[in-house]
């Protein structure tokens, strides 16, 4: 069966510090991968998605970047965090070969607080 992992689970970082959040998927190959941010009262905002290694699409201009160095690994990064980067970050995946028109499976999330 497929599983999705995210770490760390919680993170408190000062403004201006770098960020690296990691997401890995097990039990499938060539999944589509997604990064979302969930802010209170604002739902889930899609940040990045990837349909393959090295292929990243950005949905919203921001202070963050994403990379996919391996087939089942998706990394969310920032060089300098802003207060507005605080939130709950979710990684998700969908079955390969079916495009994004399918159910997404979500990871446990990372709670980021920028002070």
């Amino acid at each position: 069966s497929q599983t999705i992992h995210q770490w760390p689970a919680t993170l408190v970082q000062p403004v201006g510090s770098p960020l690296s959040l990691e997401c890995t998927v097990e039990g499938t190959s060539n999944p589509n991968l997604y990064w979302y941010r969930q802010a209170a009262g604002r739902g889930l905002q899609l940040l990045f998605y990837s349909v393959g290694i090295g292929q990243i699409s950005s949905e919203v201009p921001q202070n963050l970047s994403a990379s996919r160095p391996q087939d089942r690994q998706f990394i969310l990064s920032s060089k300098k965090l802003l207060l507005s980067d605080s939130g709950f970050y979710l990684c998700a995946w969908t079955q390969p070969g079916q495009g994004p028109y399918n159910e997404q499976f979500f990871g446990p999330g990372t709670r980021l607080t920028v002070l």
Partner: protein
Amino acid sequence: AQSVSQHNHHVILSEAASLELGCNYSYGGTVNLFWYVQYPGQHLQLLLKYFSGDPLVKGIKGFEAEFIKSKFSFNLRKPSVQWSDTAEYFCAVNGWGSQGNLIFGKGTKLSVKP
């Protein structure tokens, strides 16, 4: 551009009450529709989905939703809620011909009083 509106930010019900959470979307073409639920401390998980066919879809835990194309709606219903239904509920849509990525509503928090 696609968008999803969930009408209620927070709904408070007593056990055994009936539930209906509103969801409206904007997209002119064919859509896939989803309801996701996030129980306290748990992963976001799929409650039900509509791709095609019967517009009344049934999901887990007694939930159902009806797709009304003319109203661009996909409301979630449950005849009798339980305390364990306390959670946040998200409606989502992706449209064929668009990028296909899920667009989520802002969510509705449901609190069920025992």
